[in-house]
């Protein structure tokens, strides 16, 4: 393998800036509650950012799995904005259309859609939209046990949403802001 100095790596520039002072101590990885599920540990990911391994980064699940608990940010001895860096990677992935992790993206998109519509998540609607987008006929069955469990605990409601478009304005504003400041 050679280190890459291609122009392509430039799309990582904002993230690199954030994590440049990293000393690879691994506190972030140790702190991360989701690290077990990641294909690259956070530390590994930052290293790849430094090395400009763009393809590997965007083929990875790591940053999608960040649940923004901020443990790493809190503990990082360098004071790096690691959670923010994860978020930025997600944004770049969307923006650069380098989404590999389709389910996750669809999941997010439909989650936000539900939020846009109601100002909160309506689980049933959100999951319905998600299943539709995934175009996977058996997928709903996989979620059955979870769904039933939630239902039993009264965490799921089949009631159809009342009101609507509560956060439309907010979402519009955000899009405008993003367009104004690319």
């Amino acid at each position: 393998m050679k280190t890459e100095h291609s122009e392509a790596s430039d799309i990582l520039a904002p993230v690199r800036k954030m994590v440049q002072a990293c000393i690879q101590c691994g506190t972030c990885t140790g702190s991360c509650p989701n690290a077990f599920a990641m294909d690259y540990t956070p530390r590994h990911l930052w290293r790849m950012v430094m090395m400009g391994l763009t393809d590997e980064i965007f083929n990875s699940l790591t940053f999608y799995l960040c649940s923004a608990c901020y443990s790493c940010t809190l503990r990082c001895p360098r004071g790096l904005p690691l959670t923010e860096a994860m978020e930025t990677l997600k944004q770049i992935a969307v923006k650069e259309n380098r989404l590999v992790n389709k389910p996750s993206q669809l999941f997010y998109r439909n989650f936000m859609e539900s939020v846009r519509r109601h100002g909160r998540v309506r689980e049933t609607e959100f999951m319905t939209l998600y299943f539709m987008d995934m175009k996977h006929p058996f997928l709903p069955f996989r979620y059955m046990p979870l769904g039933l469990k939630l239902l039993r605990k009264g965490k799921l409601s089949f009631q159809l949403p009342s009101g609507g478009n509560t956060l439309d304005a907010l979402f519009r504003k955000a899009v405008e802001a993003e367009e104004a400041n690319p």
Partner: protein
Amino acid sequence: MDKNGRAMVVGAGIAGIRAALELAETGHKVLLIDKSPHIGGILSQLDYQFPSDHCGMCRMLPMIDRDDSSQYCLRKGLFHENIEILLSTEIISIDGEPGNFSITLRRKSDWVDSQRCIGCGICVSVCPVDVSDEFNEGLSYRKAIYLPVPHAVPSPYTIDAKACTRCGACEAICPTHAISMSSQERKQFRILVVDDEMIVRSSLMEILDTEGYSAEMAESGQKALEKLAQQPYQLMLTDIKMPGMDGVELLQKAKSLYPDLPVVMMTAYATVETAVEAMKIGALEYLIKPFDTEAIIDKVFKVYEKFELVHARKEEVGAVILTGGTAFFDPKQDKNTYYYGLLPNVMTSLEFERIFSGTGPTQGNLVRLSDGKPIRKIAWLQCVGSRDIQINADFCSSVCCMFSIKEARIVKEKSNGSIETVLFYMDMRTDGKSFQRYRDQAESLHGIRFERAKVHSIAPDADAGDLMLRYTDISGKLHEETADMVVLAVGQRPSSAAKLAESVGIGLNSWGFVQTSPFSPSKTNRPGIFIGGSFSGLKDISESVIQASAAAFNASKTIQRATCNVQRAKTDAPLLQKPPRILVAVCVCGNKNPLLRGAGVCQELVKEWMSDPAVIVAEFTDQICSEQGEKSLAELVGKHKPDQVLIAACLPYVYGKRRRELSQRIGIDPLLTEVVDISSLSDSEMIRCAVGMGIEKLRRMEDLPIETLPVKQKALVVGGGIAGMTAALGIADHGFEVDLVEQGEKLGGNLLWLNSSIEGYSMQTLLEETLPKVEKHPLIHVHTQTRVVSSYGQAGDFITTIESKETGVQTIGHGVSILAVGGTEAIPTAYGYGKSSNIVTQKELEEKLRNKTLDPLKLGTVVMIQCVGSREEPRNYCSRVCCPTSLKHALYLKEQNPDIDIYVLYRDMMSCGFAEAYYTQARKSGVIFIQYDPSNKPEVKISGNEVRVIADEPIIGKKIEIAADLLVLAAGIVPNLSNSLTHAFGVSSDQDGFFQEADSKWRPTDSMTEGIFACGLAHSPRSVSESVATAEAAAQRALRILTKNQLSAGRVTAKVHHSLCSLCERCIEACPYEARMIDPEEEKVMVNPARCQGCGSCATVCPNGASYIQGFSRQQMLAVIDAAFI
């Protein structure tokens, strides 16, 4: 006393002691002060030090003129004829200028009279108060009257005024009436409590009364003013919301009457803002209701303390050395992910030092304090409070890696290896002489595990008290591990004295440590005030000691003109060879010794002692320790005119200094007085025995002459680099001639090619400033292109032959030698060095950048490899400067051309101390650092002009290949100390060819042979400013000898009965100080009295007593043993 000849040393920790001793030994008077009630600073809490893993602090004591100072454990205390020690003393202000400072001191009043206290400790047994003991880092409790350091003398006991309830129990029971706390003292502190609510007033009154203050009440502002008009008060506590005149109005009115009256506002939470306003118009503080009793006591005490500290004292000195030491990071202050203070078995390194100390809370047993369970496994976590930008600690504390290894090694040693130990670290910073081998041994020999990982948090384990640590290893694998105890290697912080420094106009750096001058780390921006020890931050003991000597040197330079060449008159008592005439004085200790109550017993003992013709008088007397007792003893002496005095009393250490005072008073040499401890003896037989042994010791104690050796007050400095030039200048500035010998054509050494320091200070400027001073100095004789052929002699009197290309062979007589021959960059033998013009060393890069033969704009990719040939056998040491140099170069290249890709391949980045900030900066600027393991070194491939570096990237776990336009090798430093040179001077070099110091911590610039010193790179790898510090330290060590025109030996010194000597020379082999040699002409074994320290090794190897120790002769010892069994 000549005020110009005096210096003040502020802070009596190890650096302060060192600085004070250095000045005292050069004949200056020193005032050594400390705000705590004891000397020793933090080291009084640390029993074990790297690298011996024990103490050895006493090796700092003077070796020449040693009878001028104490000759016992430095933890016990210190005295020196030229040092006055003031404890519990703080500086209020420093006015004036170099050579003429006026200093105001404030001393806490002593309730325990150190002259009277005999350290019997009865007071402790009656004290009802328990307070947490700071000596044990709060891990145990002590009383309000206590020994601040369990082993210290004099002034053994002290009273914690804050904790003391003035019950007076100790005062009443003290057998020597040494305690006079005067319960009236607090009564004189009058407090006026103003509140409209009765309940508040009375509860406050009760609190204040219990604390011993005089408190009075007023129920309104008006009443309060009336009271104030009647008599003065020292403090007023007033409510804010009161009917009629409110608190603020009262404050204004009271302040107009008594502008100095401290007023504390009492307020409900709702009116805090008013209270804050009140503070703007003169209120001292405010208290929020409902009251916290502790808070009230605390605030009142603070005011009281000021009231009490009226004993201001003015001192005039020529120079000041601040040795304020260092403080430690409190892990509680931060995010505290390690739950320090919450989980009982998470402790700081300092607390842990107390755990394995014999005077600690567990008496040195390795058990958990929380549940008494024996420890089975300990984990050390490095970089707690260091290298952490989140808490403004972008620095490395420099000492924690080594002290953690030391602690782990001691644990292993104490537990015979049974306790499991693991160190979690990021970079193991072993950046000093012998550190790397010490670390390697810790791993290979002691079985200590080193884990390169940062533990991110600690959680209580299921098993009670155990701790679970989570971390990710280098490959990214998550681990969970349980330990019984976790030790946090807490980093350094500026000590509280930094504020004091700031208040006297000394600048601090951005982390609050004292800022020192670029190339002279003991100088500050205020001339005449110097910094010693770790006060300027992040230093280990050895560097602190070097710094302290350097500070002493600069102080001495400031005040030298007044005192130089002052000869101290030594009165040599005439040698007496007449029958002994011993006076025996037995203290009955206030008739407390039950054994001596019966007059019959006493009479019988006296009778027996007097039957010995050597005893001219034996008497029982009372309280020799008291002023009265001392007087009556002096009278006895005056009456009977004995030649030797034996005192049988209590703890002999109390008499350490007093014996000398007494001796002066009664005109008998301290060596001819003896104190035996009879306080703890169980029967009169034992007393008889002890006194008998004392008599035997004195019987054969001749009045010993002091030998002296003349001194040639001239120095030889070998090596004309910055260290040699600094040392030469320093000595010459003190008025002594110096011969400076340099092998090369030009003076300057490594400064001739260095550009700038990592901080950006120009080496050129340093050279340009120094060179003319050296060359034009009338007392410095520069010999370039000259080498040393041979050197003979002893401290004070050397003869050295030098050979110059131009002037031929020449002989120089001098009193001291300083070896400053420097070091050079090693020549790499790896990574394709020499096979491509694109592969250079750091030095070559520096030169290329200096003469602009390398254009950073033309570079695309630069790779730097650290530890080339270093930190592995045979050169298994860290050269200390290469990592900072790489950072310096990387930052410079990035600055010149931000587009350069720079890769640094390292093992452990040794950016110790403040250099860490540059490491951060380099990372931020985009330099990529890749860690490699010595077992898997980077590979270099050269084909034509192309240099490719292949290395494993451990995090990613893949090989990376970098095409480098430039490969820079950090080859490290090798010393220039040749065998012929060490041979010529009779000094040794260490395994790596660096100068072998007499003791790496306590005598870092001395050789085992007195009078020969080393500094700079010949001593050890170090930066330019660190080299300057060693040069100044070495110069100071040399000045101890040069400032005297003769050296005096100690009384307890080896001698030879030549008529008995068979010349087997075993004594010569046995002498650790090379104080013995054969005089080939006389065919006699000669002792150099200045070198001899009186250890007796020579006497024990001599089978027939031809070699003996004055004061411990065989005859004397056998007689003492004999007396022990009569």
